[in-house]
């Protein structure tokens, strides 16, 4: 369990970091909390020649509210999100998701930015940022852009970050009135990753019909995705147990469903439906103030 040799760089500023990232290109890898990358390096599944540790850069760990939106620094740990009072009141889906990640040690070290940039097909964060229509900030040498969550996840361990770009922040809208969020997950018993994880944000109009619903699903396909067919079946409709259940049947529609030791594709697709329904029910209860 010893990694291959690498050079270790500790930039003090973001500018310095992005210069290193640009300089080393494919031979470099950014280290944040290290909870995905370091195990891969120890198993020699990843062997970057240059490790750029951004962990010492000040001001990348924060949760703050700006112009009605919540911004979270890339180096904010899962634990800091889980325990953030601001998030608990303004965007409870994030603390609820954070609580489901790994174990206490992982949550104390792992970061939201690192997790998103890694784009693990069974990671928890992608579901929340998808369901929240979040945006991800990418900083290149002299460039800065915001990528919407739905464009961010490209494939297995692959994002739309360009070479040389560093993920620096996440921006999410706060929870509107008459809305509810939920994250539910079936853990793979060894790794704690999601066999299926479903995040939902659901908003009701004044008459109690579903005005908005977004469903992010992880663990089921090669990357986390928005369950458009589920959303389509509910949008504008008045919610009922039957309707939620029927809509949930579409949870894995069009997805090339994963199969492994813990769940075959058939069973996983079934779980996706069950957990989607459970997340919808929970979010609806919360939106209705139950």
């Amino acid at each position, binding site marked *: 369990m*010893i990694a291959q*040799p690498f050079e270790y760089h500790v930039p003090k500023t973001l500018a310095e970091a992005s210069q290193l990232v640009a300089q080393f290109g494919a031979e470099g890898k950014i280290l944040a909390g290290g909870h995905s990358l370091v195990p891969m390096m120890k198993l020699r599944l990843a062997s970057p020649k240059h490790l750029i540790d951004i962990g010492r850069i000040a001001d990348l760990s924060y949760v703050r509210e700006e112009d009605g939106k919540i911004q979270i620094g890339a180096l904010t740990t899962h634990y800091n999100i889980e325990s953030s009072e601001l998030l608990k009141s303004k965007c409870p889906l994030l603390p609820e998701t954070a609580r489901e990640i790994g174990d206490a040690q992982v949550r104390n070290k792992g970061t939201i930015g690192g997790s998103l940039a890694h784009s693990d097909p069974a990671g928890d964060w992608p579901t929340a940022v998808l369901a929240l229509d979040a945006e991800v900030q990418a900083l290149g040498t002299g460039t800065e852009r915001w990528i919407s969550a739905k464009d961010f996840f490209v494939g297995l361990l692959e994002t739309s970050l360009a070479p040389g770009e560093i993920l620096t922040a996440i921006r999410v809208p706060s929870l509107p009135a008459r809305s509810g969020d939920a994250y539910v997950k*079936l853990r793979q018993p*060894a*790794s704690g990753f999601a066999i299926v994880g479903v995040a939902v944000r659901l908003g009701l109009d004044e008459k109690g019909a579903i005005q908005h619903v977004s469903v992010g699903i992880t663990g089921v396909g090669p990357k986390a995705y928005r369950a458009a067919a589920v959303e389509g079946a509910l949008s504008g409709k008045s919610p009922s147990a039957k309707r939620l259940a029927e809509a949930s049947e579409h949870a894995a529609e069009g997805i090339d469903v994963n199969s492994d030791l813990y769940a*075959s594709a058939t069973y996983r697709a*079934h779980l996706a439906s*069950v957990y989607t329904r459970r997340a919808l029910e929970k979010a609806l209860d919360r939106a209705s103030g139950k």
Partner: protein
Amino acid sequence: MSTKLLGERIKRKEDPRLIQGRAHYVDDIKLDGMLHMVFARSVYAHARITKVDTTAARALPGVVAVYTGQDIKGKLGLVPCAAGMEGLKIPDHPCLAIDKVCYIGEPIAAVVARDRYVARDAADLIEVNYDPLPAVTDPLKALEKGSNVIHEEFGDNVAFVAKLDAGDWKVVEADSTLKVIKQRFINQRLAPISMETRGVIASYSPGEDTLTVWSSTQIPHILKTQLALMSGVDEARSRVITPEVGGGFGSKLNVYGEEGVACFASKQLGKPVKWIEGRRENMLATIHGRDQVNDLEIYVQPDGKVVGLKCLIVADLGAYHQLLTPAIPTLTALMILGCYNIKHVDVETKGVFTNKMATDAYRGAGRPEATYIIERAMDLVAHELKLDPAEVREKNFPSPKDFPLALPTGVTYDTANYQKTLKRVLKAASYSKLRKEQERLRKKGKYLGIGLSTYVEICAMGPSSRMPAGGWEAGTVRVEVTGKVTVLSGASPHGQGEETTFAQIVAEELGIPFDDVTVYHGDTFQIPMGIGTFGSRTTAVGGTAIYNAAQRIKKKMARIAAHKLGIKPGALQFVDGKIQTADGQKSIGFGEVVAEAIFAKQLPPGIEPGLTEHCVFEPPNYTFPFGAHLAVTEVEAETGEVRLRDYFCVDDCGRILNPMLVDGQVHGGLAQGIGQALWEELVYDENGQLVTGSLMDYALPRAHQFPWFNTSNTETRTPVNPLGAKGVGEAGTIGSTPAVVNSVMDALRPFGVRHIDMPLKPEKLWNAMKGGLKTS
């Protein structure tokens, strides 16, 4: 006796240093000039090695030596197997593969370098050319004619066949009133996964021609003998030191090839060589446990009384024998009757070679398999005859008056009261109330399961006649000049807490403070002889040796005390640091007698100076702890997810010396036994690749998956040793697995489900329930 220590919840002497990180494990030991070793291992399950090129590895700066199978051939002995059954086939098992590899992870070459990082990089530079052969991974297919043969010299893949036949099967088979229940059970392969992986430092001194080995082992004395034989160093100049050991669960009851290579390398280089196993290596190349296929037939009367049992045990031994590999499944046959004196028995055990890591002793070692077979069978009997599982067990229990009870399997159970533990556990769980709740919930579409297991196990191993390397244990008690007491034990506990238990025994016997007793173990230069720690023997056998040594010390001190007091030597008591007459009228200080014994100014005639007594205890029999476990589970019909809601157990391990340590052993054992029922499984694919080779894939239980364990005990003292203690290291593991599986099967009963193999993953349950409810 005023110094009441036995039976008390005394905190562990070991814990302050362990909890504060001040203890020393093998990897904490650093020697001058020490080199580091890393192994290159096979990536094929079955292949001929056509070439091993070490040129690039040798050229890497910092590399001191690279050894291959060819380098050790004829110079380093084979990995030993101590099992000695008739007709056993033992394939040559070199420490480094020479011309063939038989499992993934088999060591092919060893790199020795100035640090372990260089050694690791160099191991990747070793080029091995393989000529792949078809892998044999399924033990049943390995038995088929036409299967590829792993060890060509034997002609087939059968390592041994053992038969156990008793009773009169003509009578049984002619009895048409008997119901025959058949079932195949699979006892899946597990990984022991001790917190500390294996590790060894070998240090050969060319000047003195001595070999000192630090190893994370359960058997320092046996290891010393074997490494001396393998490396060719005189045994009297060989020493094994066992520092702190971070668990083993049987996996360190072994002699491994890596230990041999470390000795070889140190002897070649004249420098200390350290090897520390990585977790992935630990999963691949430390022994595995269980792995049996059991075809069972039960012959039962209409009233639920079982009269006959037939079983074919096919044991997947892996590619080579480790120290006790073939012996483990024979323990399954020995204990297959469980708590029931079934008259007619026919058990055949077949040990089979496959292209996998060797199986060997893992917590319970053969008895969890036996308990699983017989306790699942009892539930199948109840199920088929529509009887209550508790009632079926009661019906088949022997009476407490029947003990000692000789069984057709050839063992004699010492003493037990199975009725009592069963009754207690049913009461603790409010059994009849639970059954009513189950009925209520079923009507609401919720599936509660109640599962029982009443087990007996074989412990305190054991009589030397039945043990390959002897079954005695040695203990020494030495009173120092200052009155402090040194205890040496040949048993070598690896975390269980006998430094505490043994000190309790000696302090109570000598009537001195607990803190005045220090226990040492695990250094073959300090400890004259020893067998080791396994088979729940450490307290029952090792503790008895120490107890007996303490008796001899008392006898000698009493003679000296009587001489000093001017009275006849008789029944003197050792109380509160004094040695006194029964009426307390005459007494002398413990320290005063110690001074006399050692300074020897006025010793009575015929008494030798000194207070050191060495005892070897030879147990006349095994002990047979028993108990009753009850698991309450909830199964979600929609997804097959299982929640273990409650767990009750009543264990009887004979006399309890320290209830806190008993609780600890039971809790840990439960976690492992429940782990097998619900989560754990080592999976090899058809190419012999280990699919669950990391803790991201192999589902080791976590604390949050368990409810609070409701544990309690009855105490039926064994007559086998003067302590009355039976042993408790494995009871939790042995008793719990069938309780949980029986519970889940009970939950699924409305769906007409009879049996599902472990681990009970949600998908399997979901599939079984897909057919919907069955009205019976």
